[in-house]
């Protein structure tokens, strides 16, 4: 077992708002190994972004970390003094933002924007830092970088700007890169280029990536592991094969089922009905129950524990309980299962055992 670079243990974050306390993150567990890519998938408001802001120590002022720990290379990040956190930010943990059109300072030369973390963290002189910035611009594929290092953001297209944002994140060679929907604001063709770039960089530097997205299609080629988030919780986590081939949580089914594939017939796409629950008053039982056509009576009363299907695969749904009735998932999911079971003959969801949430970290 390789050393973990990041471990999030029982994290719970509330937001104090005028209308009450919003429970944005509710008991989240996950970890990250060096060079690994973990995708956090979920719809808006599921807590993906709050989780990453918590890792960066950049939560809004009204956020309160109720409990839990975030260990980075064995160092506790929760309640780390601000000046120590600043040394980590942009240096050991860096972040790529969603909208490249607004995340660059319009009045600063991009050379300076890229060099800034080096000047700050490595106490590098301007000349040296700019040289490195130029190398990085070449690496992220900005054509004719030398001629553009003195340019301002408005002189670049969206895709080029996102490359600049990536260059900023990578300049000080971070160990963990958090990418918050890095392709959502881009054209589809540019999306593919940016994803390729991120893969190339990961190969070159061995960076660990936390990849936030609401688009399972983007995840497929990118991630090693996937954590599906719903209403502030991880409802299913596993390797990319396990989540795509052998999904167990009805919400994961819904997400996969709403993805168009080459087999999708003409006509409408499948959608998950309803809206996420109000996190001011989270439901007592399974948060997804209200939108779940497979919901059981117990879902209304009690939160499901995590059921373990493999050393890496966990799903929080009562459907895996031994007393649960057999349900027939949507056709596309049954097809996925069949294909997966061909490749993994011993894969089964009949003997999943309920485990403590911390078992997720024990892989």
């Amino acid at each position: 077992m390789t050393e973990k670079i990041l471990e999030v243990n029982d994290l719970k974050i509330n937001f104090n708002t005028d209308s009450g306390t919003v429970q944005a993150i509710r008991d989240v567990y996950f970890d990250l190994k060096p060079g690994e890519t973990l995708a956090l998938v979920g719809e808006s408001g599921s807590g993906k972004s709050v989780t990453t802001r918590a890792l960066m120590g950049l939560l809004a002022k009204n956020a309160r970390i109720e409990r839990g720990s975030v260990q980075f290379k064995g160092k506790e990040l929760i309640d780390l003094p601000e000046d120590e956190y600043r040394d980590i930010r942009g240096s050991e943990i860096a972040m790529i933002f969603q909208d490249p059109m607004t995340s660059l300072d319009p009045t600063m030369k991009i050379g300076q924007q890229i060099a800034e973390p080096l000047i700050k963290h490595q106490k590098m002189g301007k000349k040296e830092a700019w040289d490195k910035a130029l190398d990085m611009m070449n690496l992220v594929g900005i054509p004719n970088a030398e001629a553009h290092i003195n340019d301002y953001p408005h002189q670049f297209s969206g895709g080029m700007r996102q490359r600049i944002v990536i260059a900023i994140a990578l300049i000080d060679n971070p160990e963990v890169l958090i990418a918050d929907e890095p392709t959502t604001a881009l054209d589809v063709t540019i999306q593919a280029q940016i994803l390729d770039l991120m893969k190339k960089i990961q190969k070159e530097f061995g960076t660990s990536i936390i990849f936030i997205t609401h688009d399972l299609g983007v995840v497929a080629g990118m991630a090693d592991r996937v954590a599906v988030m719903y209403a502030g919780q991880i409802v299913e986590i596993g390797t990319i094969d396990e989540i795509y081939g052998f999904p167990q949580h009805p919400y994961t089914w819904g997400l996969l089922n709403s993805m168009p594939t080459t087999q999708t017939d003409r006509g409408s796409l499948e959608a998950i009905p309803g809206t996420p629950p109000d996190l001011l008053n989270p439901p007592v039982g399974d948060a997804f129950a209200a939108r779940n056509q497979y919901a059981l009576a117990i879902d209304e009363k009690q939160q499901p524990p995590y059921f373990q299907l493999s050393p890496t695969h966990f799903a929080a749904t009562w459907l895996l309980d031994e007393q649960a009735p057999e349900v027939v998932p949507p056709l596309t999911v049954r097809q996925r299962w069949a294909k997966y079971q061909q490749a993994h003959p011993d894969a089964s969801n009949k003997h999943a055992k309920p485990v403590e949430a911390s078992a997720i970290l024990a892989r």
Partner: protein
Amino acid sequence: MSGMFKYILKRIGIIFLTLIIVISATFFLMKLMPGSPLANAARLSGEQRQLIESQYGLNDPLMVQYWHYLVNALQFNFGHSFQFQDQPVSRLIAQRIGPSIQLGLQALVFGVISGIGLGAAAAVRRNTKTDTTLSILAVLGVSIPSFVFAALAQYFVGLKLGWLPIAGWEGFKFTILPTIALGMAPLATAARFIRTEMVDVMGSDYIELARAKGLSQNEIVWKHTLRNSLIPLVTLIGPMAVNLMTGSVVIEKIFAIPGIGGQFVSSILTNDYPVIMGTTIVYSMMLMVVLLVTDILYGLIDPRIRLAN
């Protein structure tokens, strides 16, 4: 930089054309006004009246008068004052405009720089007591007229403490109190403006990215927030500068400053057309020059504008 040079030359050309239009408009507006400068001089005999009219060229055809005025005005020759015998208008203006410009510029620099400082301080400590206090002071600064500040400053600093002269215009010491009194309004305006703008900028994505780079609050304010917050303020500074430099009648009267504001008002009261016209033309020229300067400033602060031309 040659692009910049070309741009400035072009703008100066436009200023010249605008000036001609302003001179023409001023001239014809004056001619449209009912009566003549001699209307009240009933005791003049017909012959005397003719003599005076020909001396001032008032009998020439309108277009000839206009041409003469235009050519002269472009050389800053606005004729002689009716009120002060044998005083060329240009000299009258030249004597009076110096103190007004100096006072205006001082008030502008003092007001805007302190305003930016206080506004930034309030924005960084937003929703704290400092912020509330500064905001209340800014509202007071905007709403209290400058003569109240002037009177208070004269009474406390000048009279009670005796630190600075109460009135007059005999050196830098004399300019301090009027500068502060006149600078209060721009200070408060700039402070309010910068606070709003900075709070806005601090919520933007690129500031969050700056935080994610590991920069401290101070570094973020100095390197990223301030410059971006200044851009809209430049728009405000142009008209503000002209307003201040063309002389505040009230401040000039209170501090006995020989500025142009007081003179402009008295020229209107006495129908001293050449002075009114000359002053109007000089004011409009100052406005155009200030607007040119603000546009250049814009380009220096905001690269998007620099390259757009």
